[in-house]
């Protein structure tokens, strides 16, 4: 019986701890957005220089991997689609399938997941190391708000750079499809291009971008939260870094489900 209480109590504590951290996560994100909303009214300065530095860091870190992976994804999609469509002699529709699924879905999703692994974790690790080294305490004692000084530039940079990377991923992914169609299916480039241009609506492209903006908020806020809440030493930093990637990917996919249900369920 005691064993049962122990196990239940353990679960209870875990559940309680989970809701507590969810609450703290939203509190922290709210503080960041409040800061951004009130910045123009008060004499708070946005650290544009830091925003720029972070943008370059996120961009440079993720560019190669985003290009390579989205090219492969385009290629894979084209191959899979061709296998099915070939049977009906409808190979040209590979362009529709690749174009629409990349711009609507896979471009934003894959980019966000890659950036979360590459940069969300880096944010968590950097801020966590600062927390452990009392650097964040030092900021507070100097009357410098860690939200404005650390969280805001990272959030802004992420929200700008992730959609940019997504545009790139869309283009490269479609490029992968083109390459396969032109070389293997012997569809002329001009025909493929015309077909794609007809298939991809501006709405698909734009909702993809909006989605990637939402993903950017998720990735940055999770990284920042996990960094700020690090306890203990280097071990704590490692733990938070891992958690930041796993929970960001979970939330990205969750948000994607909601988004898709909201915008496309009627089609």
């Amino acid at each position, binding site marked *: 019986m005691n064993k049962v209480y122990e196990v239940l109590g353990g679960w209870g504590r875990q559940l309680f701890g989970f809701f507590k951290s969810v609450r703290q996560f939203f509190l922290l994100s709210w503080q960041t957005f409040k800061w951004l909303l009130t910045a123009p009214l008060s004499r708070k300065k946005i650290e544009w220089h830091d925003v720029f530095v972070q943008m370059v860091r996120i961009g440079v870190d993720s560019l190669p991997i985003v290009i390579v992976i989205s090219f492969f994804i385009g290629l894979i999609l084209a191959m899979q689609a061709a296998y099915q469509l070939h049977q009906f002699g409808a190979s040209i529709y590979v362009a529709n399938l690749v174009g629409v699924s990349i711009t609507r879905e896979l471009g934003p999703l894959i980019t966000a997941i890659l950036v979360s692994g590459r940069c969300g974790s880096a944010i968590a690790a950097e801020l966590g190391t*600062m927390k452990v080294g*009392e*650097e964040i305490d030092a900021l507070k004692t100097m009357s410098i708000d860690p939200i404005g000084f650390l969280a805001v530039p990272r959030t802004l940079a992420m929200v700008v750079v992730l959609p940019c990377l997504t545009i790139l991923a869309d283009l490269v992914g479609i490029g992968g499809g083109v390459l396969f169609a032109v070389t293997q299916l012997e569809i002329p480039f001009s025909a493929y291009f015309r077909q794609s241009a007809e298939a991809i609506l501006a709405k698909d492209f734009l909702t993809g971008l909006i989605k990637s903006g939402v993903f950017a908020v998720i990735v940055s806020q999770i990284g920042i939260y996990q960094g700020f809440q690090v306890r203990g030493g280097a071990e704590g930093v490692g733990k938070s870094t891992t958690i930041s990637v796993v929970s960001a990917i979970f939330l990205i996919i969750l948000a994607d489900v909601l988004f898709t249900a909201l915008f496309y369920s009627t089609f």
Partner: protein
Amino acid sequence: MNSKKPVIEIKDVYTRFGDRQVLRGINLNIYPEETFVILGRSGCGKSTLLRHLIGLQKPESGDIHIKGVDIIHADDEKKRQTLLKVGMLFQNGALFNSMTVGDNVALPLKQHTPLELSTIRIMGRIKLDLVGLAEFEHHYPSQLSGGMKKRAALARALAMDPEILFCDEPSAGLDPVVAVGIDQLILKLKSAFKMCIVVVTHELESVFTIADRIALMDGGRIVFLGNKEEMKKSDNPIVRQFIDRKPDQDIIDTEQYFNTLINE
């Protein structure tokens, strides 16, 4: 000196971590322009007390006023205003590792003053010169020795010309020459800028050089409070143990010792 209003008032401060009670009722008044030294065994809660004083951590109960402001309950803006006049040297330095030493010192000035960048650079250099690190402006903290980090952190704590300076073990891990230099610097800050300086230290020599008043903490309380002469003459056993550098008494109660061993 006691005729003045205290700049730091600490009343009945209690703190616990989990079920370990660290502070059990600290009462202290620290006055303007005095150099106040806090002594105590390692782990007795000195750093924790300093963290309370700069509002980083709320005590379990008690009141703390810095320049008349209730630092525990003040709103963010009030706290910000108060802390602008306070400098803190953390025990481990807490320099920003991603910035050069020069940028570390310049940061508070960049954030809180409308000065030109060139002026800020010069002011930062003056502070670095004060701690003997003028030629290390462009080094990163990871390129400095432990003692140099301490001094760089001291320069950063001084950047805003604080009225109150907290130093957590400023000369721990420094060679004796530099340690004496830090003592001299503290004396200079006191005479030239009329700063109120609160120092946590273990170095008895430096205590007797710089201290106006000394508090000795033990078991979460202040067990001795007085000036150098009073401390030297005191027959309080804990004070004597500190001054005469005696090790802990041998375990008398063997049974109790055995019990502490077997209960983890």
